[in-house]
């Protein structure tokens, strides 16, 4: 009995020793040298693994940061939208560099075609995914650019920052949004845009991406941008551009003066987080004046569209 036990012990012991020696040399030969900074940087990253930085996870973003710091001595073009400036500063200090402060971004829904604004002409009873519905048809309200309201963006959000409002049938972004861009990719109609949060969280944007001619756009949705160009004319900062019957406000050039919001005939331009307007006598006059001149231009503008419709 004892003999058997002894043989077993000797054999196993020998096998173990040989394996240990082999493993030692193999480990020496195939040693992976990793910059210890990667671990340090990885430590400060938010570990959300959302892909908002453009890399497939926080670890690879940390690797990219260290690589960029070693090769180019700068972190240009790399940004963690989730962590924001604080995390980027911390990461940069580990790498002995400095980063420029970047404006935080937020996802903005550029469609206001709610159930009330764009009443349903048909009913959809297919599967609840925008990707399929987009291939199938234009939408319940008839607008081929508008939100389908089936919530692919909600499903794509890892941060609980976007929800459907059952009353309007449109998604709503809350302040948990970290601008990772997942919803932008998920939306088959490219309705969602990442825009700077703006000073005091104030933002102005055109809440419509309809490129149809004014008459058609208005027929499908009461709050569509009809491409009348009034906002373009009233803007003193060249922030508004017109293309394909659609206005676009450049968030960097925009000085948040709100003139365009006042003149928009369809209320397609939205202002967010602004205090309620105080109506002073002087400004009121001004507003009225601009409005009357604008309605005139609007009328002449919309006439040919009416012609083409009839």
């Amino acid at each position, binding site marked *: 009995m004892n003999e058997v036990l002894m043989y077993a012990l000797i054999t196993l012991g020998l096998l173990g020793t040989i394996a240990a020696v082999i493993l030692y040399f193999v480990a020496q030969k195939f040693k992976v040298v990793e910059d210890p900074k990667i671990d340090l940087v990885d430590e400060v990253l938010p570990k959300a693994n959302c892909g908002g930085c453009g890399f497939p996870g926080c670890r690879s973003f940390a690797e990219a940061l260290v690589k960029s710091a070693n090769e180019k001595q700068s972190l240009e073009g790399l940004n963690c939208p989730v962590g924001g400036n604080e995390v980027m500063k911390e990461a940069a200090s580990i790498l002995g560099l400095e980063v420029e402060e970047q404006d935080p971004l937020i996802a903005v829904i550029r469609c206001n075609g709610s159930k009330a604004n764009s009443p349903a*002409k*048909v009913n959809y*009873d*297919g*599967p609840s*995914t925008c*990707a*399929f519905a987009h*291939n*199938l*048809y*234009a*939408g319940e309200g*008839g607008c*081929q650019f508008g939100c389908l309201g089936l919530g692919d963006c909600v499903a794509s959000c890892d941060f609980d920052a976007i929800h459907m409002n059952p009353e309007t049938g449109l998604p709503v972004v809350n302040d948990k949004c970290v601008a990772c861009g997942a919803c932008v990719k998920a939306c088959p109609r490219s309705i969602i845009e990442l825009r700077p949060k703006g000073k005091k969280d104030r933002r102005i944007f055109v809440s419509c991406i309809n490129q*149809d001619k004014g008459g*058609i756009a208005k027929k499908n949705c009461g709050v569509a941008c009809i491409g009348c160009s009034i906002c373009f004319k009233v803007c003193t900062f060249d922030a508004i551009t017109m293309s394909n019957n659609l206005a676009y406000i450049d968030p960097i050039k925009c000085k948040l003066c709100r003139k365009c919001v006042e003149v928009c005939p369809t209320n397609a331009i939205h202002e967010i987080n602004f205090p309620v307007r105080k109506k002073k006598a002087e400004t009121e006059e001004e507003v009225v004046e601009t409005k009357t001149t604008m309605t005139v231009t609007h009328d002449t503008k919309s006439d040919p569209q009416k012609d*083409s419709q009839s």
Partner: protein
Amino acid sequence: MIALKTFKKGGVHPEENKISAHAPIQKLPFPKQAIVPLGQNLGAPSKPLVKRGDEVNTGQLIAKAEGFIAANLHSPFTGKVLKVDDAIDSSGYRRPAIFIEVQEEEKWEEGIDTSEAIIREIKADKQAIIDQIKQCGIVGLGGATFPTHVKLMIPDGKKAEYLIINGVECEPYLTSDHRLMLEKGEEMLIGIKILMKALEVEKAIVGIENNKPDAINHLSELAKQYAGISIQPLKVKYPQGGEKQLIKATVNREVPSGKLPIEVGCIVSNVGTAVAVYEAVQKNKPLIERVVTVTGKAVKKPSNFMVRVGTPVQMLIEAAEGLPDNTGKIINGGPMMGKAITSLEVPIVKGSSGILLMKNEESRRGIPQTCIRCSKCTIACPMGLEPFLLAKMAKLSLYERAETEKIMDCIECGSCQFTCPSNLPLLDYLRLGKNKVGQIIRSRK
């Protein structure tokens, strides 16, 4: 009794409901305004040749084919071009179209024979036939609208042995091909002869399902005078009208995955296409009209109409004595593969084969439950795929894997969804997956 031929793999047998089968083809009055979409064929949309204010004759070329897979477009009416602008198509999207104000009095373009007389002698040679078909903008009228002249150009090194004519009409409700076979049988057979000459084949087989005995008898009688054409009765099974299924059923050959029927020496064409080919080659008449079935259980007068392209759907429904009150869905095509339309202003195009009005209660979808792994969809799939798996992959965006599982082989027949006891939207997800995988494949090129 000898068992009738059919395809082997999968298939279902939905209720046939061919309620308009005895309604003769009627001519429809002209609309006041016609909308002729530019993208009526598979492939590139045509390029308009007319502008606002132009006077057009019936049969005049109004849009030219651009690209290889493309077809010419001719004016279906005499009148004035109102504008070339976007118009909604059956899905509700706006796509370019030519708007024509229709004039009561019809003036045909010169050189078109509008008489009813049948011309039996085929004078044109192979190349002249293909050129004439191309000129007249003939596309496959089975639904896919693939330009016929492209189909007739057989790639080098391949040889066609059989011309298979699809008179199956396996979609429930639809009867347009059935009526055409009964009323234009002679024209159709001459059309087949023309196609045979263009393809240089000796044998043509017309596959007809056994639920149309009158058409089988009528054509068998006529075909005696035409050498090489045989009529093949087939067992009723959906989707026998699918190209690959029909080849399997008639000549017992299997088209390999991802390949065209010419790989096994076959060319498949629809009966409607054969009639259109006859009119193009013998009468120089372009493709401007087609037979459309208007049907449904609640429709007062289920009918078959000879409709000019560009006629709004509204007019067809009025001619069938109006929209029933409890209509839930208006479907462009048959109940299996058709898609619901979003507006009655949508025009009839070259590919419309029927307008089906479904009652509210029958149009409703069942509530989807979880998959119970009963494998009914796999048994029903005529392409030998696993629909439940592919649908799941499309749902989870696993497109690479879906591609290796041959999602692109799916013919979108809907047998899987039809047979699913859990009411799962399998076909919808398969369509989504096919679309995405198609994009991935195209981006590789």
